[in-house]
């Protein structure tokens, strides 16, 4: 909301101007960044290890190789070691976690040990999706007469929230199988146990195939992603590093989630 208002203000103010400036920023010691994903889609476990770089450095963060990455099912202490693809992620294909059970990742890298645990949430099916066309690039209702707005839409995903517990969700949109950058995060703090309506904004689809994935996640991952969102968007009043569920001072997260999808074919609407 704040950002929307500020951008409108900037739009309205004809005198606003932007320019690149030099800022002398401190450097920081490189830290390990862990992205660890596991869901029930059959894709299996996927872990990518990288390191942070200084602000002034160019990107191209080196993939960290040679780590020992182990997935543990805590119920029976079954341990599976992930294999690294050449200069890429560590994987454990076809692994399917059991709903309601606890899992842990243990990573040993350059003599340091990192660990994260999570419980596998229950799958929540998407009941239906409603399409609302004609949105401006900022996600605000746009002028239908403007052809540019014809290719933006707001989708509303409807799903039933399980009662009795607090639930957290992420909706990921894919346009022609490519994930969109925006993070859509919802919880049931307001409408606990009720039918949820979660808006998802898609931009410049060209008569494309849209897939919505509903990720049922836990509180720690929800918080991590919320912080990640404000960090990336630089919209926080208190910019900070998202708090990782990994111990040992690593950045990044272990996201264990139940994944359900809905498919849509979007057609460019005619102006009403």
């Amino acid at each position: 909301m704040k950002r929307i208002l500020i951008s409108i203000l900037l739009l309205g103010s004809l005198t606003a101007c932007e320019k690149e400036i030099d800022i002398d920023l401190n450097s920081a010691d490189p830290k390990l960044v862990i992205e660890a994903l596991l869901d029930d889609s059959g894709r299996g476990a996927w872990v990518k290890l990288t390191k942070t770089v200084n602000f002034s450095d160019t990107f191209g963060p080196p993939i960290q190789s040679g780590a020992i990455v182990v997935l543990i099912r805590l119920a029976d202490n079954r341990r599976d070691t992930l294999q690294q693809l050449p200069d890429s992620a560590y994987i454990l294909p076809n692994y399917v976690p059991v709903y309601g059970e606890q899992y842990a990742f243990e990573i040993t890298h350059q003599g340091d040990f990192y660990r994260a645990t999570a419980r596998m949430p229950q799958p929540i099916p998407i009941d239906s999706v409603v399409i609302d066309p004609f949105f401006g690039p900022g996600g605000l209702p746009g002028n239908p007469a403007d052809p540019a707005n014809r290719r933006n839409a707001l989708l509303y995903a409807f799903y039933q929230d399980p009662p009795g517990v607090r639930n957290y969700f992420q909706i990921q949109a894919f346009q022609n199988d490519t994930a969109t950058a925006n993070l859509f995060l919802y919880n049931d703090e307001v409408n606990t146990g009720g039918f949820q309506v979660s808006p998802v904004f898609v931009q410049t689809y060209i008569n494309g195939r849209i897939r919505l994935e509903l990720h049922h996640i836990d509180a720690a991952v929800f918080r991590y992603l919320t912080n990640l969102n404000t960090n990336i968007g630089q919209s926080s009043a208190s910019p900070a590093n998202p708090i990782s569920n990994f111990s040992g001072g690593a950045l990044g997260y272990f996201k264990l989630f139940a994944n359900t999808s809905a498919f849509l074919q979007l057609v460019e609407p005619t102006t009403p």
Partner: protein
Amino acid sequence: MLRFRAFFLILGICTTQAVQAQTFTISGYVKDAETGEALIGAAIAVSGTPPRGTATNVYGYYAFNLPPGEYELLVSYLGYEQFKQKLRVTAAQKVNVNLSPARQQLKEVVVTGEAEDQRLRQSQMGVEKMNIATVNKLPILFGERDVLKSMQLLPGVKAGGEGQSGFSVRGGNLDQNLILLDDAPVYNASHLLGFFSTFNSDAIKDLTLHKGTAPANFGGRLASVVDVRMKEGNNQKYNVSGGLGLIASRLNVEGPIQEGRSSFLLSGRRTYADVFLRLNDEFANNQLYFYDFNAKLNYRLTEKDHIYLSGYFGRDVFSFNNQFGINWGNATGTLRYTRLISDKLFLNSSLIYSNYDYNIGFSTSALNFNIKSGIEDWNIKQELQYFASNSQQWKFGYNVIYHTVTPGLVNAQNTDIRSLQKRGLESAAYVSHDWKPNERFSITSGLRISHFAALGGSDYYTLDANRTVIDTFNPAGIAAQYAFLEPRIAVNYNLTATSSLKTAYTRNTQHIHLVSNAIASTPTDRWLMTTNNVAPEIGDQVSIGYFRNFKENTYEFSVETYYKWMQNQLDYKDGANDQATVIDPELLFGDGRAYGLEWLFRKNKGRFTGWLSYTLSRSERRIEGINQGQWYAARQDRTHDIAVVALYEFTERFNVSAAWVYQTGNAVTFPAGKYNIADQVVWLYTERNGYRMPAYHRLDLGATYQLKPKRKYSSELAFSLYNAYGRQNPFLINFQQSATNPNRTVAVQTALFRWVPAVSWNFKF
């Protein structure tokens, strides 16, 4: 022998009493002869040895005692002709004084009297008065006269951001200022995201700023009290004034209902920025404007009873393609009854209503929702002022406020607002004592007892050590309550006739908090009351100052230093979600400290007037869980803050003005590194507020030319140029990947206003 001494002692006391019994009370009102407006703080002096003096209260009333005899009464007020009258005291007397505005300020009108060295004489320190006439001559953004923005040119007061009417006083947060309009708190004193203040200077009579050192009759905020008084309306004749500006127009009508007895004032303002916006096709269906109204009625029932009704209503409206809309604003109302119980007892009772709310509407083909959010106060205030003697005055009073806070939720479905609404009862009782033991000393001391009760009937949360919600409860009675004793003392010692030394200690507590660290004041800022998880803020301030006037008060100089300790200062925890429905877990509490040195040098008389102010200061916080528990700079911490203001009158009808400001940049958090998650750039932070925005500086120029006045009609043209040398002061700094080399990260600053010229035409008849 001992008995003998005791006898004389008793005799001495009796004699004193006998002498006192022979004095008579001289009292009355001091008013503007042309408009009938009560003059606040006018100086009353009586010749003789010792010379006696007092000042009028906020209703223009004064009282003091004199033994029988012949005297000369002198009444003076800055910008008015002095009033002189022989006074023969044989019995208690009413002396009502009407002062005429000084016509020819340019010629050598000797305006002497105590009002001019008020800053020197009064025991209170950290007090600034804004003269509305001066405010009207200063250059300002978009040419809209604005008391709150002009106030930011004073030492110890810092602007919240580019063009903002929000401000920080002595290192305090923006929400630590109590802004009162005729005693009614104004929660969001800004329009259009802070670029205009809610105060239409046409309707404002007087503004007093207390920089955290207010006497005991004020309380509830740590950093300052801004006491704004609306005009009462001319009770002598009808008066229409107004202005046409580039961005807004104003109209002000005032006049008597019954001449000399009752009057009204109506003042309105509306902006039309959206008219320009609509010239662009893309914004054709958009609205962006604000309007506000001030109204006041005042009626003298009898010589001793007076009733006032004043109100303010302002609204900002923004809508986008008739689909998304937000509107927000304040409404205040004050019903006040004052009664002169006796010459020495002045009673003031007020019933005050205050509301700030915002509404968001969103309507598309698939979804409709509407949200109402805000803060509402009902407030009863009663104060008895007792003019005990020439050297002593007492104030006794109480104040009870019933708050209802509706949190802002951007969520559509089935929200039960009632259960989320918080209610609180804030009460205070106080006594304040002004005492002049001798010619050199004056002392104001006071005690305020404050109490806050967070009332049940809505959800409260139990948090664990990690500030995670572990339980929700809805108590029937009181959820949490706190009580405090707030002592205050201010001492003035006159070193010589033209210099004084002052010191003060004040404790303040605060139960209403704003959770926002944003760069601009936004309508969706969240107000939060003290609860079981949100502890009340406590502030203690000590200050010392030296005041000196030169050349018969032509020049004044002051230097003040202060140190402030603050407890339970709230800040967002790292990466807080400021949109969270339950905000308690997002906040952390700790200590604050602020200290500084404020210099002010001002020239008050002659063609050339103006001032130079410089503040050297620091404001820091230490909160467990933020910045590894180490002290860090508060956002508003700025080491240097300079303001130079110059006004020059070429002729009676033409004057120019200039204001230059320089400030160290705000403390901000910038990244030290970066990394990738899901192919997006994530910033690595190492410390809170460890960097500085570039220094801010700006020159504004203004000129006012009065067109040839007709018999009943006068008008003027006011020109202003904001940011005359076009400095690109950063409003925002963002980090992004370079467009030319996506692997390189660059910092990009957004500057808002360069060279904003404005012209407005003001009229009066």
